[in-house]
């Protein structure tokens, strides 16, 4: 109490020295600007490719039961330089039909994270490949689903993000509609996926793809996609419903046979461009039903496998009973 007067003086001195705080730390990243959405699916009909392996099998074997697959528009996968050679014909075809072509770019360096021989040899080669794709499409505007699994994969890094960003830029500048693959609802969290999509340049793309080649239900995929869409500037998304008719196979950590050519699977909902739910651009068949997941479940290749196609059709709720019965009876050639 003897100190009170002295104290008061010191406090005044100190208060005099204090100056208003200056914000020297500025936020990073700065606010993002998103490109305006083009809505390519609105009112569009999807391109149906009659020159497919399944179609050739159907014709050769007289397997009319394959109709539910061969009669449904699907995406065309581009896995290599050779695959791009077929693009001019598809582009021309689609333009004449007035329908929307959906392509899948699947040629990223080290795309599977385990083998550097998979995909383009290096980022420069990849950009050249994207350039050749742009050229092959010419004046046709198509939907390009970019690089399934590249974003959620464990080997995603800054280099991969930069590669994707540059490729997206090239395609979008050429007038193509890009949907970057985001994985599916039971892989990475929406938050982590959003960060990766943003790193990979989603701002410029039309949106992202959910459930490609996977079997999560449409409702679950939509829930996850909606959540994710809100985190990436309300970009729209497409859901791959090609094989999710029965939902995901039971998750058994000891046995990964279930996700690879599972015995119980079914075609999912048919493609739709109605976009009748907020954020949803389209339901697509991106994975081509009947193509094998790889050497597993009795298959030896990644190519069209009639037994897989038959399983998918037999279990599909929306396919009429006679066709399912015919598929079930079919002897596989």
């Amino acid at each position: 109490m003897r100190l009170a007067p002295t104290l008061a003086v010191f406090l005044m001195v100190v208060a005099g020295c204090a100056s208003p705080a200056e914000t020297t730390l500025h936020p990073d990243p700065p606010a993002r600007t998103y490109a305006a959405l083009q809505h390519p699916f609105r009112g569009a009909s999807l391109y149906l490719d009659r020159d497919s392996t399944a179609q050739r099998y159907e014709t050769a074997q007289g397997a009319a039961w394959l109709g539910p697959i061969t009669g449904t528009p699907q995406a065309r996968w581009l896995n290599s330089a050779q695959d791009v050679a077929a693009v001019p014909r598809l582009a021309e075809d689609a333009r004449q039909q007035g329908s929307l072509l959906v392509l899948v770019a699947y040629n990223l360096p080290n795309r599977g994270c385990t083998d550097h021989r998979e995909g383009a040899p290096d980022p420069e080669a990849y950009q050249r490949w994207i350039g050749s794709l742009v050229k092959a499409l010419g004046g046709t505007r198509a939907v390009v689903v970019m690089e399934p699994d590249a974003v959620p994969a464990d080997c995603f890094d800054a280099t991969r993000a930069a590669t994707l960003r540059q490729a997206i830029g090239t395609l979008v500048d050429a007038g193509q509609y890009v949907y970057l693959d985001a994985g599916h609802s039971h892989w990475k969290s929406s938050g982590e996926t959003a960060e990766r999509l943003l790193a990979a340049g989603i701002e410029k793309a039309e949106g992202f793809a959910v459930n490609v080649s996977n079997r999560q239900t449409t409702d679950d995929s939509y829930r996850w996609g909606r959540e994710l869409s809100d985190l990436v500037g309300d970009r729209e998304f497409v859901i791959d419903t090609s094989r999710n008719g029965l939902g995901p196979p039971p998750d058994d950590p000891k046995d990964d046979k279930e996700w690879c050519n599972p015995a119980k699977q079914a075609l999912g909902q048919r493609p739709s461009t109605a976009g009748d739910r907020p954020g949803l651009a389209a339901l697509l068949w991106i994975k081509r039903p009947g193509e094998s997941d790889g050497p597993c479940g009795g298959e030896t290749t990644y190519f069209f496998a009639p037994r897989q196609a038959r399983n998918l059709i037999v279990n599909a709720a929306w396919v009429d009973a006679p066709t399912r019965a015919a598929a079930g009876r079919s002897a596989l050639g």
Partner: protein
Amino acid sequence: MTLANLAPTDVRQLLSVRRRLLIGAQEWLRRHAHTLTVLAPILVVTALVRGIGMSTFPRYVDDPGTYLSQAWSLQYEGTLSPYSYFYDHAPAGWIQIALWSMLTDGFDRHDSAIGFGNECMLIAGVVSTALVFALGRRLGFSRWVAGLATVLFALSPLAVLYGRWTFLDNLATPWLLAAFVLALSPKRSILAGTGAALCFAMAALTKETLLVLLPALAWALWRNTDPRNRAQVLTVAAGAGALLMALYPLFALFKGELFEGPGHNSLLGTAAWQLAERESSGSLLTADSPMRDLFSDWLAQDKLLLLGGLASVPVAVFAGRLRPIALTLVIGWLLMVRDGYVPFMHVITLLPWSALLIAGAVHVVAGSDRRWRVGAAAALAVVVLAVAAITWPGRLAPMMTTRDVPTMRAAELWVADNVPRDKVLVVHDSIWVDLVHRYRFEPRPIMVSKLDTDPAVQERLTRIDYLVVPEWYVGNPSASPTLVEAHKHAVPVASFGDGSDGVRVYRVSRYWSP
């Protein structure tokens, strides 16, 4: 009655109040002139060193925010906490902060609650510094030796750093020092003894862990009492202290929260948790224990005060009056080797006693007035001051000159500018008051420390829109599972600083709910 009949003291009554005050002040100054010449410059320097730069250093930590929110709640809502009061600490600390704020409009005077807390700590620090001087004098030190203790306590980088954070320990220290000053009063009166006990009770009501120092204070009081009235002094003092302290459990009893029971917090339940269940920090003697890491952090700030104080404990053998002081310090060190929970700010409890014992060593060496002993004591003091002069300025300079806004403060300002007021925010405790009081977020933000610990918060939780916490929180599932889950559905929209103390503002997806 004529003028001639008046006694000399009564003459004053004829003077004006102003005149009397002036004379009183002059007398006071004359009596304390020597003390003031030593102490006043020290206090000025202390206030400057501790005050300059306190708004930008150190970084925001959570406890100050918690205490300030409780003080705010007391002032503006009349409750001990904006959440269910959890009895994790006795409330006297934030009651004092709230009183100062009510008197001086503290939360409105500053542009951040942490800024107001800093001011409270500055006052407490200067008062503690003066009390260290007073206690040094009561221990028999000369003014210069007492001054040495005061300088060591006031300006050690460790003391400046921890003294700036709004910790209850910083508010308890003046009470504890005052208790010893009164316990060593030369008057040895019942009044002084009672005052000592009341001050100690205040210290313990401010930071309950200081109760472990009771034996040291009791010993000091015992030593200083005259055998002729010792029994009375101790009885009255103990009674008064116990009575004041009993207010706390009585308050809990009144609220029906003394004993554990379903559906409510309880004092005894929380005490049991604090004493027994909190995760041990390990022992100082175990390599790689959290305690050892914490100790290394303290030493990195200043070795002189901590180790010098410990090394000076044996001088108590030569000076009886120093023994209770040494005991206080030894208890503080024993807590660090016992393998129990040791809080981050425990070091605050060690500092004044370390400073007093180092000065005590000088005092003991000086001993009688023999010239060679005085010379040796002076040499010792010079060595101590030289070590301080060499090692401290490099540590103190950044504390006073850093101009970068603390990352959490920068994030807070960004949120105030960019986030709509009706969003639900989960925030670090340190910015809660500002968002509620200054920026008027409604519904109120949720303090991250309460997100998973307060059942009422969990019950009402329907959505989370933003997260504003240091990075280490989101990567640490044990900190808050709900926060970690929300983070999985969120993207960073702004980030400030790097590393685990960096702060990112996350926006949670509208289509996710907890």
